[in-house]
């Protein structure tokens, strides 16, 4: 009898263990979420060819570089387990993470690393994803799990270039990265359908903590007017980059609204080749008369952050708070400066704005009224996005424009290089030898401290020279159905799915 009792007890124990294992297994969430995004994902699936900020924003979950940014703007190891930088800052040695796998189940090898680095740095005969990688002089495989990258000249921002989706590690065996999407991130790509959706699924063999929600569908919602209705109706659970108007339509009972910033430098960019704008008095007068706070009140209910120069607050150490108050509104001073300039009676100008960005169009409307106070008669010309790219950005055939400029990576370089006189993307035709010198000093600095000092100097020059009328880093609203929680903003244009969890 005792034997039977023991046997039953043992069986029960075994059963409990098995069942426990089952429940434990089921504890991994099998839920799904649908996230509304405003633009279609029509880019190449090759991370090294991705162009649109909106594409990279969500593929941040699929691809990882040797290192990646975290939500505080720090650079943390990803595919590489650790990184060592030599004393002369010219050699970076990466150790491959042990046991890391691609989405197709294959282990990441040192050959994949070598192949990827050569591919995105343009060393395989193709184009580098960023001119910063032209600085790579050698890529050497040291052992089965160690690889080193040598630079021609020291660059304190080198790791931040490696932390972008454009510098992702992809398998060498994938012959068609354009259409077959394999990465190492916490989510794997499943499918996409033009103008309908993009589907991701949690990658259960991810090396890190990974995501909570199993299935993620990004629904393309091109019609801004129906987004709030779709949220309320339950077709989408979450939506990023909402406008003030959309946010206000939502029922606070059902949605959590997160407020952050878009990580853009929104400004009235001035074409310095256009006659009145080559006069510093005119530019300063315009800065004194333009009230960023009034614009924020009108465009986004007072939300947003003042900037004062071409650096936005999430850039942390490069951002100089004091620059935001240099041009506090002072109409008398503005009038004085105008009187000193060659245009005491004001002049006519055109603000060209891309019509698809409601915030920029609204900003231009407020600016028009503010500029009228000092006799500047601004007219607004709305153009479609492709025309804007062609005429304003590439053709530099415009007088002024309102736009938000973003950063490709977390180095100040990404925001400041375009104002050097020789830069190919210097669409404002800004030309200041003092700026060029400070910028060169920053780029050639061997230590981070000196680089930061000179980058801040650059930012100060842009401010004191009133290169443009700097306005704000636009506010960004994210709405999530209360069934979910845990969105977090990044200092870059990134949506991290692993932070989102189902409310138990």
């Amino acid at each position, binding site marked *: 009898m005792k034997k039977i009792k023991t046997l039953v007890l043992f069986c029960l124990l075994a059963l409990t263990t098995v069942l426990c294992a089952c429940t434990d297994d089921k504890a991994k969430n099998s839920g799904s979420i649908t996230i509304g995004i405003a633009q*279609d994902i*029509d880019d*190449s699936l090759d991370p090294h060819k991705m*162009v*649109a900020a909106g594409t990279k924003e969500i593929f941040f979950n699929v691809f990882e570089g040797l290192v990646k940014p975290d939500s505080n703007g720090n650079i943390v190891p990803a595919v590489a387990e650790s990184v060592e930088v030599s004393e002369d800052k010219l050699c970076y040695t990466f150790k491959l993470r042990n046991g890391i796998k691609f989405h197709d189940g294959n282990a990441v090898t040192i050959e994949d690393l070598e192949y990827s680095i050569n591919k995105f740095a343009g060393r395989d005969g193709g*184009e580098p994803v*960023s*001119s910063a990688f032209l600085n790579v002089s050698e890529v050497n495989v040291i052992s089965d799990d160690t690889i080193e990258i040598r630079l021609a000249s020291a660059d304190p921002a080198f790791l931040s270039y490696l932390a972008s989706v454009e510098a992702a590690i992809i398998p060498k065996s994938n012959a068609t990265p*354009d*259409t077959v999407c394999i990465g190492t991130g916490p989510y794997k790509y499943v499918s996409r*359908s*033009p*103008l*309908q959706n993009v589907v991701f699924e949690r990658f259960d063999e991810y090396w890190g903590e990974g995501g909570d929600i199993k299935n993620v569908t990004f*629904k*393309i*919602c*091109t*019609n801004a*007017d*129906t987004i709030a*209705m*779709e949220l*309320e*109706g*339950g*077709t*989408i659970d979450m939506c990023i980059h909402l406008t003030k108007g959309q946010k206000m339509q939502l029922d606070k009972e059902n949605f959590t609204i997160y407020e952050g910033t878009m990580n853009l430098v929104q400004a009235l960019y001035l074409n310095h080749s256009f006659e009145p704008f080559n006069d510093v008095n005119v530019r300063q007068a315009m800065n004194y008369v333009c009230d960023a706070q009034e614009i924020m009140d009108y465009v986004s209910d007072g939300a947003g952050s003042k900037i004062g120069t071409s650096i936005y607050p999430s850039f942390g150490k490069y951002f100089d708070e004091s620059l935001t108050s240099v041009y506090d509104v002072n109409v008398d001073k503005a009038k004085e400066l105008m009187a000193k300039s060659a245009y005491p009676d004001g002049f006519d100008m055109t603000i060209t704005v891309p019509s*698809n960005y409601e915030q920029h169009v609204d900003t231009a409307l407020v600016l028009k009224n503010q500029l009228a106070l000092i006799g500047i008669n601004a007219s607004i010309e709305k*153009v*479609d*996005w*492709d*025309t804007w*790219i*062609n*005429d304003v*950005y*590439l053709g530099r055939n415009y007088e002024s424009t309102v736009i938000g400029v973003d950063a*490709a990576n977390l180095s100040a370089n990404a925001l400041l290089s375009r104002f050097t006189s020789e830069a190919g*993307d210097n669409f404002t035709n800004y030309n200041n030898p003092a700026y060029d010198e400070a910028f060169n000093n920053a780029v050639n600095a061997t230590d981070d401290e000196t680089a930061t000092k000179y980058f801040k100097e650059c930012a100060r020059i842009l401010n004191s020279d009133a290169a443009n009328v700097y306005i704000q880093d636009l506010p960004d609203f994210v709405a999530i159905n209360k069934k979910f929680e845990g969105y977090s903003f990044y200092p870059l244009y990134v949506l991290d799915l692993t932070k989102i969890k189902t409310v138990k």
Partner: protein
Amino acid sequence: MGKYIIKKFILLIITLIITSFVIFLIFELVPGDPVMDKLGTRATPEAVAALREKWGLNQPFLLRYFKFLLGIFTLDFGTSYTYGISVASLLKEKIIINLCMSLMALAIVILISFPLGVYTAKHTGGLSDKIISPLNQAAMSIPSFVLGLLITFLFGIVLRWFRPGGYVSYKTDFFGFLYYLIFPSFALAIPKIAMCIRLLKGNILEEASKDYSITAYARGNNTTGLLYRHVLKNAVMPTVTFIGMIAADMICSGIVIEQVFSVPGLGQILINSISTRDFPVVEAEVLMIALFIMVISFITDVIHVIIDPRVRI
């Protein structure tokens, strides 16, 4: 009949060639560049030049146009710049969506407006006429997209008969797909129903006051017999023409309604392709719409022959 078809066919080809040329020309003249759209603002000049070469955008305008025309005749519309897949496969699903939506809307128009039109004509001045006529007036004056928003709000948010934006592909759930399309179809159909009722009623009343109707009355026909045997046949002709026009218009109105109901149809892809300068897609789609409209007008003509033996084509 054979001669007529040949004539129509030649006309169709000429129309399509003119349309395609106009679109080609417009795309040549407007600013913007598909290459820049694809590569983004940080593209190097070398990459831009390479892609331009790949897409053949360096060739002279007329040469490109003739190459394109040649493609059409071999039913090859090329590859979408934006998506990198063939235009035909890109548009296939969209065509099915719009065709289903338009056909459903058309069926709704015919099924509702004919009986109601005849009924109100028969009971002019009665209570039903007094109720239907003002409703009709209201339905006619509300644009489809406003109606779309009202329908979404009432049936989607308040009554929860459908989930706004909850479109499902016909590949995953065909009946769910049809069910979802009922709502945009009604938004498309309601203003047209109102117009049809009014037109049909007017025509019936006009025909009924003509000499032949009075004669038929004199010969002892009752109102119902007269209406169905004599008057309706004549009164229905202008309505058939009108329905042909509606069918063509459904595709165009559909572009707006799609946006309201978030249906990923031809309209969304057309607007998107125009803004990204995805020329092959725009060209193929506009040609298809032109073709569709011509085919509808042809079908309308044939129906005329069937209804009215006096008409010869």
